[in-house]
């Protein structure tokens, strides 16, 4: 972009994309804000005018609000913990030279290509079903009573399903990071008297810092809006109602667009709070 002419030409050519993206973001955001201040019940009288902050007050004072925030954070935190820890371990394992490396790597990535709805249904019906599920058979084989996963351990089950889906993503990013580690550094550490565990702790893990940050940030964005896995398994019951699911229920089950929109604005606020915390904690890794 050396000359003034080429700069203005570049601006002109980028304009359509920028305008489209802005419209894509601004229109729904404005509509959400608009509806959040109105009494809007599509099946019970339609749009009934301004109500000020009534929707906001009702949404927060509802007994479902704080548990839903807690559930959301628990799912995000649980999935992050499982995917990062197992992701690092799997990446270490896959980095070892072995027979059939190519096939194994593709298999490891495969779950990421399965649609959330499908994978949740597979888990629900094939593994966690208390009568026909594989886990039930396994439990019975040992003479134990099968666990009703989705009702007795509902949060754990959902975290498990979501983590299974996101583990390949974490593994893939961490694997590429491990492969970029200079092998001479590991040899130097070995000569310096660091056994395998210390080499992992002092050399490999710090090297992975940036990749782990990227995994955490990207996954958080998507995990805050987990929906399909809850919809096809517990439908928000047994303490699995996240903020996203609560908004869905307010808008579609209670047919209250105004209340749901106010919830949407709270979701934006929650996402920003989480983002600020994350950037404070792990964001400094990106500066290096």
């Amino acid at each position: 972009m050396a000359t003034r002419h080429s700069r203005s030409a570049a601006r002109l050519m980028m304009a359509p994309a920028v305008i489209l993206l802005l419209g894509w973001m601004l229109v729904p955001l404005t509509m959400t804000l608009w509806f959040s201040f109105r009494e809007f019940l599509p099946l019970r009288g339609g749009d009934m005018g301004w109500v000020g902050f009534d929707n906001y007050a009702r949404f927060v004072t509802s007994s479902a609000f704080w548990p839903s925030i807690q559930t959301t954070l628990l799912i995000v935190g649980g999935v992050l913990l499982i995917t990062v820890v197992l992701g690092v371990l799997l990446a270490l394992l896959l980095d070892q030279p072995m027979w059939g490396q190519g096939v194994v790597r593709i298999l490891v990535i495969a779950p990421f290509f399965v649609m959330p709805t499908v994978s949740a249904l597979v888990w629900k019906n094939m593994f966690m079903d208390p009568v026909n599920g594989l886990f039930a058979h396994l439990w019975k084989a040992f003479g134990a009573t099968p666990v009703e996963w989705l009702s007795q351990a509902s949060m754990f089950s959902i975290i498990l399903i979501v983590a299974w889906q996101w583990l390949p993503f974490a593994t893939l990013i961490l694997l590429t990071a491990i492969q970029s580690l200079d092998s001479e550094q590991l040899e130097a550490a070995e000569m310096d008297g660091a056994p395998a565990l210390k080499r992992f702790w002092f050399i490999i893990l710090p090297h992975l810092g940036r990749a782990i940050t990227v995994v955490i940030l990207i996954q958080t964005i998507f995990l805050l809006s987990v929906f399909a896995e809850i919809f096809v398994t517990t439908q928000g019951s047994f303490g699995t109602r996240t903020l996203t699911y609560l908004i869905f229920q307010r808008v579609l089950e209670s047919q209250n667009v105004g209340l749901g929109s106010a919830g949407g604005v709270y979701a934006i606020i929650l996402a920003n709070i989480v983002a600020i915390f994350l950037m404070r904690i792990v964001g400094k890794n990106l500066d290096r």
Partner: protein
Amino acid sequence: MGKITLEQVSKSFGEVRVIPPLDLTIEDGEFAVFVGPSGCGKSTLLRLIAGLEDVTGGTIRIDGKDATEVPPAKRGLAMVFQSYALYPHMTVRKNIAFPLRMAKLPQAEIDRRVAGAAQVLNLTDYLDRRPGQLSGGQRQRVAIGRAIVREPAAFLFDEPLSNLDAALRVGMRLEISELHKRLKTTMIYVTHDQVEAMTMADKIVVLRAGHIEQVGSPLDLYRSPRNLFVAGFIGSPRMNFIEGPEAARHGARTIGIRPEHIAVSADEGPWSGVVGVSEHLGSDTFFHIHDTGLAETITVRAGGEVGFNHGDRVRLTPREDQVHRFDEKGLRIA
């Protein structure tokens, strides 16, 4: 104490034998340089001594004790890598302290040794920086610092200067030599640069395709190379090789004569040729002489002020006492 002995040490990667069985002794306190063209196995040999590669056969002794199966950390050797292999997320201080921390030394002792090493290597002002904020020469010194704090039995250097620019390389060469004089610790140094080998070594080990071609002091190798390979490898510019009748006159298949042992003049001397390219270094001038009827080109060293132009016909006088003679197998005839 760091006497290192290799007995019948060999190394194969799968089917490929990179080092056939070889014997070598490096005395305590010696500065030994492994030199050879790239791919000759010199780095592999160093890594075998370090323990980073397992030997296929033979025994490695350090201080007379069998160290063949001893893990690298327990051999008491410190290594400086070609890429320096500094830990990028640690400060210089932590980099240098790392081996001491791993050895679980008390903090006071660690601080003392790090400060000592930093002073020796002029790194005191940089202790709180990270490797990424240092220049190439400073990184090199940090890598050396990390090696010396361990007070090892021997230092291993794997082409440590190859990433530095020419001026810095000369400086670091002197610093490493100085360090060796002061510490009097065994050092093994791998390089493909024969100037480094000649200037630093007590003992040069010339390698080709895993074989040791000759072991000796720099001047031994310069004065009496054992075969054509060593003769061609040691010395810069390289030795002139002449075959045919002129060699036969000396009773050899090939004779070799170094550029510095040929005198050039306008009208005197048994050989004659035409000046090709001349390289003026200021102190010396190297003439590449063509059409001598002896070899394709003969390189000759003359004083810096000797002026012959491209295309001039000159005459050459070899110093008869400096002619090296080699037989059909390329071995030196005494």
